């Protein structure tokens, strides 16, 4: 990431924003971020196409957490049963039918909490600095496309974005100083 310009374009509809992303993809520009007030399927499809991304990795966190939960429950229930091996009601020391419930609950608990952690980790949250180019209208009713480029590409990209339907394009100088990029 070099010192350069950030072009902040504003769109009124997610269709146009998705078109802008496709245009950037065709122009082989990959250093961009899209902002939206809601998870628009069109924008998400366009960006995953442009970046060659698959589905979110959060699901692996959830799977791992769930399996950990089941194993923890087995260890807890069966382990403590054998530690204090009292015959209760003629049941086996480690009676599986009731323990299934504990396994299920812990699977969900750990799966859910791991999912939350995964989500925060992969989204770089909590974020203490504003992402370059963020405007508060992007949370309200506008869609944003922020492209980082060098000085000489500015006019080419500006016309590209305007063709896609950008209402407004602002420029901001980008100063790299270890500011976390919001990938």
């Amino acid at each position, binding site marked *: 990431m070099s010192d350069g310009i950030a072009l902040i374009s504003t769109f009124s509809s997610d269709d146009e924003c998705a078109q802008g992303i496709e245009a950037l993809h065709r122009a082989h520009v990959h250093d961009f971020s899209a902002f939206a007030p809601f998870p628009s399927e069109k924008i998400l499809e366009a960006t995953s196409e442009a970046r060659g991304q698959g589905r979110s990795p959060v699901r692996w966190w959830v799977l791992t957490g769930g399996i950990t939960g089941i194993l923890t429950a087995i260890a807890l229930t069966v382990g403590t049963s054998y530690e204090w091996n009292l015959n209760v009601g003629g049941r086996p020391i480690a009676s599986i*039918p009731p323990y299934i419930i504990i396994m299920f609950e812990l699977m969900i608990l750990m799966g859910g909490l791991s999912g939350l952690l995964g989500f925060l980790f992969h989204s770089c949250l909590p974020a203490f600095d504003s992402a370059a180019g963020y405007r508060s209208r992007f949370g309200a009713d506008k869609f944003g496309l922020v492209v980082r480029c060098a000085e000489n590409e500015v006019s080419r990209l500006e016309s590209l974005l305007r063709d896609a339907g950008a209402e407004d394009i602002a420029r901001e100088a980008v100063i790299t100083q270890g500011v976390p990029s919001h990938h």
Partner: protein
Amino acid sequence: MSANQPASLGAAAVRPLRAPVQVNWQRLNTIAIALLAIGLIGLVAALGAGQADRVWQTWLVNLLYFMGIAQAGVVCSCAFYLVQGRWAGSVPYRLAESFWLFLPLAVVLFAGVFIGRDHIFPWITHPLPPNRTVWLNVPFLFARDGAALLIMALLSAWFVGASRGPDAVRWTNSASDIEMPPPALRRLAPIIAILYCFTYSLFAFDLVMSLSPQWHSTLFGWWFFATCFWSAAVAMAFSAVQFRRLLGPGNAFTAPTILHDYGKLVFAFSVFWIYLSFAQYLVIWYGDFPAETFFLLVRLWHAPWSPLGWLAPILIWVVPFTVLMSVRSKKTPRILGTVAVLGLIGVWDLYYILIVPALSPNKLPFGWVELCVTAGFLGAFILCALPGLRIVASAAAPGADGGE
């Protein structure tokens, strides 16, 4: 498509505009008739050979099995109307309703249960105390169950007729999401769904639970009609997979999400089934009342029934749950189709182990008698389903209006 070039312009004008469907109905018809013949011959032979017990018990198993698929299919269509599902036009509705013609036949076949009643109901040959025979006696039981079957068949006929009518088809293809279905369907769908729950609980209590008169489980009726519903979902998934393969390219079942939807239906209701099964198992295990536990012990823990007993939950839950968890496998026809077939076998096995161990706890009588009777019922079911399946094929054919 050159094989379908008309011989002349006149023929072209007369030829229907839809692309011809490539399912070989004739062959299916022949197979069904052959199965039916095997069934009838086997039935007569078995009765002659003194195997009346096995004949009538298998008769009951098969009647409940196929009747469940047929009725629950209609109820599935009702459910689609109630949630106003219009994600794939009229095709899901046609597929759900395609098995319904077995229902009037089931009313007739119920007579078989009456004929074989001495071999099925232990409380006929070993009468219960008078306070219980008020409910479990031959005239009352057959009158109420026969009436229930008749009412459900009539209502289903009315419903299917209305659902295949032009108003309903137009509604299923309309885009507006707030518009309600036509009035007849709006009234019939909830009535059939509610009556289904009550009548199939009645059948469960009368025709399955009463075979072990000392046993009871309040959840049994609900569990039974949930099983029937799942069997219909699985039958629909299986049919969808076959249609996808056999109808021309671009047919409605090749749409990217339709198999996914059937897969989700199979997956979700399989989980619901194991939940209801576990709820019963846990309560009975925990209470440890001998009057309740014997039912499970005979079927799950004692030879000779335990392998078949465990086979049912494996085929109905373990396989669909593990195999169909990922999105990709739900969309893969071969996988969905295999799970569906295994599920259909699993449900048959379930009904078999519900009914027969009550009457033959120490001996597993499965053999040619069971196979013949089942073949006969399968043949009859296919013959009844053929008209409905043809309607599905024409609605789902490439270019038909049911597609998009």
